[in-house]
């Protein structure tokens, strides 16, 4: 057990993966000497060399496109997209190539490529640096989409993602990068499966579904609600595609109420899939419709407005209250 920040846990996880498998490469803008703008790749180039930790030209399509080629040659590239808002130049390579090539080959090809995306707001940044583009990828068949919410998961999940033979879009909650927790760097074989949701706080009255940065927000809300005598169960989804529907439905059937929380705009966001699916699964158990808490259906605002844009404890509790008015 060591205490690590989430950023450091990712760093250690990648380091471990690179030690375990010489085919693992890290590539992206500024991932080398600088160690990435968030220092998540800090020290890796120093230790593994420029051949394995590659500072690429400044073009995201090129990053993902060449990563695909490297994977075809037997490598396991881990690409860093510098910020969420800059993944879109790579959209074509991700959606039409990375996601579809294994199927196109009838299984002859596998593409173990990880695309790491620091995501979400709350860091006072300028435009394009605070977005939550997960819904673009959860709707893209052929991709796995995961989101870590804490250092221990970050450490394990990045290694699991790298070992996975499918392409994985890996979301990292950038405003939680500096939060610390105990990480058991030894228990490699006992990792919780990458595609499973986890109840991170048991409760009886309402199920809160969250992932990435919002898990902590929900935990805070649960602590506050407890004082009001309300027991919230928090499920950290971890994997968005595939979704652990069984685990979620089990919780919602017990509580009878469900609130979904994410930072992305509500309209067409991933919460819509959660709400639709849960309603279908748990129709007779639901005392209220699944309520969604998310960003307004607008572009991410200037940072002086982000406290109003981002779901916070109050917005979550407000939705919980509303779930009881039905």
């Amino acid at each position: 057990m060591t205490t690590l920040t989430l950023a450091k846990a990712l760093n250690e996880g990648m380091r471990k993966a690179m030690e375990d498998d010489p085919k693992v490469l890290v590539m992206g803008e500024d991932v080398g000497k600088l160690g990435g703008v968030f220092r998540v790749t800090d020290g890796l180039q120093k230790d593994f060399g420029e051949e394995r930790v590659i500072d690429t030209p400044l073009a995201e399509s090129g990053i993902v496109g060449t990563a695909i080629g490297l994977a075809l040659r037997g490598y396991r590239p881990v690409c860093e997209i510098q910020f969420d808002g800059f993944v879109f130049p790579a959209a074509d390579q991700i959606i039409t190539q990375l996601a579809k090539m294994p199927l196109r080959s009838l299984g002859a090809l596998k593409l173990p490529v990880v695309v790491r995306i620091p995501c979400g707001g709350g860091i006072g940044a300028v435009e394009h640096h605070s977005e939550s583009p997960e819904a673009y990828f959860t709707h893209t068949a052929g991709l796995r989409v995961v989101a870590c919410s804490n250092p221990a998961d970050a450490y394990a999940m990045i290694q699991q993602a790298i070992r996975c033979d499918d392409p994985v879009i890996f979301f990292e909650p950038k405003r939680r990068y500096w939060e610390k927790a105990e990480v058991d760097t030894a228990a490699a074989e006992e990792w919780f499966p990458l595609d499973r949701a986890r109840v991170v706080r048991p409760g009886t009255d309402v199920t809160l579904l969250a992932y990435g940065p919002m898990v902590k927000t929900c935990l805070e809300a649960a602590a506050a609600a407890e004082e009001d005598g309300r027991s919230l169960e928090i499920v950290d989804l971890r994997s968005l595609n595939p979704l652990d529907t069984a685990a979620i439905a089990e919780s919602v059937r017990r509580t009878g109420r469900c609130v979904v929380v994410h930072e992305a705009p509500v309209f067409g966001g991933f919460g819509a899939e959660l709400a639709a699916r849960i309603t279908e699964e748990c129709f007779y158990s639901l005392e209220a419709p699944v309520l969604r808490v998310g960003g307004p259906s607008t572009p991410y605002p200037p940072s002086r407005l982000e406290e109003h844009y981002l779901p916070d404890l109050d917005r979550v509790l407000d939705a919980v209250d509303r779930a009881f008015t039905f």
Partner: protein
Amino acid sequence: MTADASRGAQAPPELVQLLTPEGERVEHPDYDIDLTPEEIRALYRDLVLVRRVDLEAVALQRQGELGIWASLLGQEAAQIGSGRALTDADMAFPTYREHGVAWCRGVDPVNLLGLFRGVNHGGWDPAEHNFHLYTIVIGSQTLHAVGYAMGIQRDGAVGENGAATIVYFGDGATSQGDVNESFIWASVFNAPVVFFCQNNQWAISEPLEKQSRIPLYRRASGFGFPGVRVDGNDVFACLAVTRKALTDARSGQGPVLIEAFTYRMGAHTTSDDPTRYRVQDELEAWKLKDPIERVRAYLFKNQLADQAFFDEVDAEADELGRDVRKRCLEMPDPEPLAIFDHVYTEPHRLMDEERAAFASYLSGFETEEGGR
């Protein structure tokens, strides 16, 4: 001859040519090739056979057996010349039109038809032939090829007995961001990759002028690596130029852009109607430069082959055509549940759920005797 028709009608001076349209061997200061009669006959055979496969595919499409077909007619020399320059260790990344290259890589022609028939999205194992799947999204394969070449570098497979990558794309593709990014990556990392652009003068209905105002081979100079324009209807020149580029790439000298100056003699695909946008004269001018005729003329004039040889090749071609047709018709439709196969390599819960639900939906019809 109209302005349109004059496109490429006279060979530009920078064009590498070793065999004229009339079948005369010419010298080039930088490129030469020394082929045995047997090798030349083999090239001729390749050209004829791939043209025959292509014709058969067009016919199959007309008869409703294929949904669509992208003909290589006119581009045989570019594809056979470059394809025969590859060693087994080299890796090729095609578009959707590289039937001739596929032939050189040993891909069974019938396997090419699956995609166009609609029974699969790609019917061969790329690793088995070192020939990647057809790529339809214009230009995207160029980055894959460069990444693959970077993998070759990391494998230490550059140098003597090294390997290289070749990637095919069209004149239209040169406008895509991806293609230009691939030039950047290749030059910055000095990757062992040959960019093989078949400039067939048209991107569907758009003539080259819509993509570039200078010859395409010169694009490379803007990225700091060599570009060369070769007569794409001259199989000798295509072989020589590609061989040299691959040798250079394999030995660590980095990327080269080859522009094979050729012509799309047919429609863009069987869905296309070129009479809407191009003049017949242009086609006629290019017919005189047919890639097969000139080899035939050369073989004939130099008495390297007799009529019996030509007849034999034609017979082989017919047989191949018949075989391709027969096996095309035999290609089974995939099972409905195949929709869920290979989407993921590892087990995936949603696929399992949807597959099961769909199976049960389908079985409902069986009990209902075919449903409503």
